[in-house]
């Protein structure tokens, strides 16, 4: 088992194939290729770390300095899959930022309203209910974005099971019970 020990505080780390975490941390990194791991730690500018390798009773501690002796060319031999993954995420981020900004030089008037306000004004004009954005407390858990742009699905048939139950009666009964509870 390979354990990564980061002593530096205050970093928010996102390693491939793992849920993001905050430092200081002690985590199992056996499933992450070592070169990817060192590269990621370099990117996050983390200096205070060591990797502990445990095999049975044997325990070897690799300090950061020793690990960085790995030649630059070895670091470049990253798994194709991870390179693709990083590229994909960078593209997604780029598109998100593009979508958030309206290029100033293209707009005829510098509108001093944000997109949401404009949407509400138009909705009022069209007598549509205005959807208010509710302030949601920021979730601690990182939920990856869903983006299937550019992906295609070709589907053949699914297994089909014929419905044998009359679910409508059960739904009526449940609805009555739930109403009583209220």
């Amino acid at each position, binding site marked *: 088992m390979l354990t990564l020990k980061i002593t530096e505080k205050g970093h928010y780390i996102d390693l*491939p*194939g*793992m*849920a993001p975490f905050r430092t200081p941390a002690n985590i199992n990194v056996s*499933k992450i290729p070592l070169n990817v791991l060192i590269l990621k730690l370099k990117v996050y500018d983390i200096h205070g770390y060591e990797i502990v390798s445990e095999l049975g009773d044997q325990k070897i501690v690799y300090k950061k300095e020793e690990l960085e002796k790995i030649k630059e060319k070895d670091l470049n031999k990253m798994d194709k*899959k*991870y390179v*693709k*993954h990083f590229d*994909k995420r960078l593209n997604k981020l780029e598109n998100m930022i593009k979508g958030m900004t*309206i290029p100033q030089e*293209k*707009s*005829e008037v510098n509108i001093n309203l944000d997109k949401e306000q*404009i*949407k509400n004004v*138009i*909705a009022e004009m*069209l*007598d*549509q209910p205005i959807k208010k954005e509710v302030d949601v407390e920021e*979730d601690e*858990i990182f*939920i*990856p*974005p*869903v*983006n*299937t*742009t*550019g*992906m*295609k*699905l*070709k*589907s*053949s048939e*699914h*297994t*089909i*099971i*014929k*419905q*044998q*139950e009359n*679910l*409508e*009666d*059960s*739904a*009526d*009964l*449940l*609805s009555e*019970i*739930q*109403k009583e*509870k209220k």
Partner: protein
Amino acid sequence: MTELINMVDEMVEKKDKPKSKVLCLSIDIGTMNIVCARSDSNDIKMTRNVFLELDPEIVNISELTDISYVEGDEGEIFIIGEDAFKFANIFNQKVSRPIEKGLISPKEISAIDVLTLMIKDIIGEVRDKEVYCSFSIPAEAIDENRSVSYHENVFARILGSFGINYTSVNEAMAIIYSECAKEKFSGLAISFGAGMANVCLSFKGIEALKFSTARAGDWIDKQTAESLNIIPNRVTSLKEKHIDLSTPLGGKGRNKKDNLVLQALYHFYESLINYTIKKIIKEFEEKVDIEIDDSLPVVISGGTSLPKGFLELFKSVLNRYELPFEISEIRQAKNPLVAVANGLLVRTMSDVKNK
């Protein structure tokens, strides 16, 4: 400016459209299968929750006729569903399972995007409809420290991206909705799936106790394989073809070696049931405050409860214990593979009625 014009056009178009029809949906996202039921159809759709990434240099897309697959934005090919197993055997690869022990796997980088398309495909057409959906989530496991919140939020985000109104519902509670209407939604439901066993005690439609354990069908296969030093796939294959729990021999295989595997499987089925019942008693004693005077039915469901003789084995193990409430009946769900999806649909329809 163009963006604004498009936005206005879109909103005017929406205003002119006739009011959409309400559609109720359910999606049971399990370790082994994804099952979807719709209020406008008598067909319940089911697909294997697995995929296999293939090197596009090995396989040409034009060769994949009658095969379900996803083509990634960089030309990657993911064979999805049952076909993934066939290709895994051909190319001697291991299939990827987006769900591991009942929860979304953090190991699979491509899992969420592929799962999104698989779910979109199984749901089918929802255009111009106001769609409401309940999806299944497991309860927190008492024997493993894994959070359900991440799993729940990922599926909420997937359904939200299709413009669907969603609610998450506990998997075992869904069995109560589908199987215990005659008891006014009171009962103890146990869903023996592939990755987890989910338990829920409901009293008149209120969840009194819910939990899950990380021991279920995959655990049986793994333990059997480790005990006899054989690969788990071989155990799974024998289990699916020959297991018969009405005899302690576990059924009859083709040879002596198969028979040994079947006997081991019987032992671990019994051990799984024992473990789950012990946990039910312990959790009830520690967490349930209410006195239950009525006798309640025990309903068992899930793919692991499918083998011949499972219900009888369950009854005989349960007889060794005294549950903290009276049991009126021990029965199996009418169709253990679709009981959760049906229960979720009952819940969606009920919620829509009460809107």
